[in-house]
């Protein structure tokens, strides 16, 4: 089975949404996927994270239309999508241990679909075993 590694180092709504969308394309195409969340993307994984900001684009019309689609439930939220993908199998999710510790968090403080709190050596190992690595 081919393997894809996704690295997400931003907690911005659009980046998180992109990571989940790319993962969904890979999982539904039968690829194995490993997602490594770094920097403020880890904060977005907190169980009690504050409501995330709306998507912002340099083009106001784009922001308005995407945010409207989200409000209307036409776009699957990234958290819901990752939960569903976990259920399908073939997806592992890790949060960067360094940022997790800096934020004073433990694995149990993160969303249930997070499998591991791991270091960048784990990311390097997974990347070397993967067919493709995409940083988002």
């Amino acid at each position, binding site marked *: 089975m081919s393997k894809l590694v996704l690295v997400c180092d931003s907690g911005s709504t659009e980046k998180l949404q992109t990571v989940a*969308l790319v993962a*969904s*394309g890979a999982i*539904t*195409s*039968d690829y194995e996927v490993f997602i490594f969340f770094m920097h403020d993307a880890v904060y977005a994984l907190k169980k009690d994270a504050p409501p995330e900001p709306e998507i912002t684009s340099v083009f106001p019309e784009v922001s308005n239309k995407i945010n409207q*689609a989200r409000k*209307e*439930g*036409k*776009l*699957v939220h990234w958290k819901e*999508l990752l939960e*569903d993908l976990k*259920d*399908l199998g073939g997806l592992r999710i890790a949060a960067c241990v360094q940022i997790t510790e800096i934020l004073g968090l433990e694995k149990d403080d993160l969303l249930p679909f997070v499998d591991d709190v791991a270091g960048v050596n784990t990311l390097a190992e997974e990347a070397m075993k993967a067919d493709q690595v995409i940083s988002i």
Partner: protein
Amino acid sequence: MSQEIIADQVIDARGSYCPGPLMELIKTIRKGEVGKIYEVWSKDAGSIRDIPKWVTKANHEMVGVFEENGHTRFVVKKVR
């Protein structure tokens, strides 16, 4: 192929953008019974390619794809 196929369950995903319709189908089929027929309604252009491709890859049967007024019906039989 007749469009008069009676599905055991209809998934109305006309309000969802990609990958919503495909994800709804996958979730439903995983919980469903072998031999049952499922029908997804989608207005998402990506579904035209993504749903038949997944059905083939997942070794289910693509019974038919039918264009209706403003949406597409994907009829799928769970075979494993």
